[in-house]
């Protein structure tokens, strides 16, 4: 797996993935729907898979002493590492935003712990939806991205609507840290759990469907 992961970063990684990581700094924008920042990693994953298709990555990988399921796991692990990096890099910017001498985010959820928990759920949904569709037919990477990004935007719309319409979101979750810290840490824990469960589930299902598919060259 370490060798396959190395292959992912040395050959398959699209340069925009690194550039998008820097967009975690958008957390400094005073009023902005911060969920969008984490969607950029999804876009990077799409570019990686698109570029992999154009570079016949699967043919190259299949000729190496690997198993098909391992190829799938390495790609998903790379996506998880990029997503984690995007979240971790965003943390100091979120702290800076919280300490700015101005009101909280007027465009949506504040840059707080809840945002990270809810964003992890969003990334879990992206991973499940994208990789499930992608590994059914790796030629149709655009279809997989349309499905996944549609779900993500619906999730974002619901989350931001809740922020305005649901008192618990508005009064408890959308507050500066460390207010309601217990509630927020629970949301973060749920976010991590959902992300892990959905990503592990898609790892298994995608490996199964890829294992059974014919590779057309």
């Amino acid at each position, binding site marked *: 797996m370490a060798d396959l992961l*190395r292959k992912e970063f040395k050959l398959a990684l699209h340069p925009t993935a690194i550039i998008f990581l820097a967009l975690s700094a958008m957390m400094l924008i005073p009023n902005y729907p911060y969920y969008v920042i984490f969607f950029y990693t999804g876009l990077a994953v799409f570019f990686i898979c698109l570029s992999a298709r154009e*570079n016949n990555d699967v*043919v190259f990988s*299949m*000729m*190496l*002493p690997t*198993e098909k399921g391992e190829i799938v796991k390495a790609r998903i692990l790379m996506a998880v590492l990029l997503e984690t990096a995007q979240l971790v890099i965003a943390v100091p910017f979120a702290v800076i935003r919280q300490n700015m001498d101005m009101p909280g985010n007027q465009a949506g959820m504040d840059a707080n712990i809840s945002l990270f928990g809810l964003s992890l759920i969003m990334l879990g949904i992206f991973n499940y939806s994208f990789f499930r569709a992608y590994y059914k037919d790796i030629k149709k990477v655009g279809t997989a991205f349309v499905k996944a990004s549609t779900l993500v935007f619906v999730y974002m719309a619901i989350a931001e609507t809740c922020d305005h319409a649901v008192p618990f979101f508005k009064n408890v979750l959308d507050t500066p840290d460390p207010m309601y810290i217990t509630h927020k840490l629970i949301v973060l824990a749920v976010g991590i759990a959902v992300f892990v469960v959905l990503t592990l589930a898609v790892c298994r299902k995608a490996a199964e469907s890829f294992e059974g598919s014919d*590779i057309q060259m």
Partner: protein
Amino acid sequence: MSSFNSEPASVLDVRGLYKKYPAFELKDVSFSLERGKITGFIGRNGAGKSTTLNSLFNFVHPDSGDIEFFGENFSDSEFDIKKRVGFVAGGIDYYKNKKIKTITAVTKRFYESWDDAAYKSYINEFAIDEEKTPGQLSAGMKVKYALALALSHNAELLIMDEPTSGLDPVSRDELLDDFMALCDRGITILFSTHITSDLDKCADDIIYIQNGKIIAETGMDSFVDSFRLLKMDEEPSEGGWVTGHARGIKRMRKGYTVLLGTEDAESPDASANGTIEKADLEDIMIHLEKGGRNNG
């Protein structure tokens, strides 16, 4: 972990491979490869060469059939088998814009048996510039780079899908020379081609596939020797001796040529209809593909 202690004479055994597509079908494809020989896998475009080769490495899943490398079932020992086999599928069309040295650096980590000195030696021998990308290499150099990669992990069996396709005659000849040199060192080679002169030059054995079915698996010389060409001035008559025994009939600018089995060609009926000549592989392939009917 599988054990490869006992070495069977056959390095690859394929038995009863079936694969059905809406417009094409592999039917009971069976063959085996003898250690240290060059085997040409021949057939016209669309005959099933690539589908068969892609089935060997699990790119395509056969509906049924058994594939054994070195006496081990592929699905049970995929990881170990891939370490001993160099598979070149459809040319080197991957990562065209990455430097050769980067691709090599990634590849070599997958093989415990990687031999850096051998790799450097092949890179020098084939005059491959590691600073270049596959996109900057000629078709011939791409195949040679694939060979260098396979040989540097001490592959015992090389399987290549149309490696000579798109090569100029000189590059093709050089590549075939390389194949023969590798064969002398005990490496087994299976390569598909529709260029019959490739096989005339270097193949020990031949596997002929037609419409998804293997119609011959034999030594190259005995295959060629099992046919003769009958040259006739007139079109063979319907229901006559010639059309009854023809394996293929082809119209020429002057007259007709008829492919006959060697035994039939020795009959007085054959010599009564024209002159008998030896057939080469191209004659055999063209006539077999045309069949017994006159297709002009």
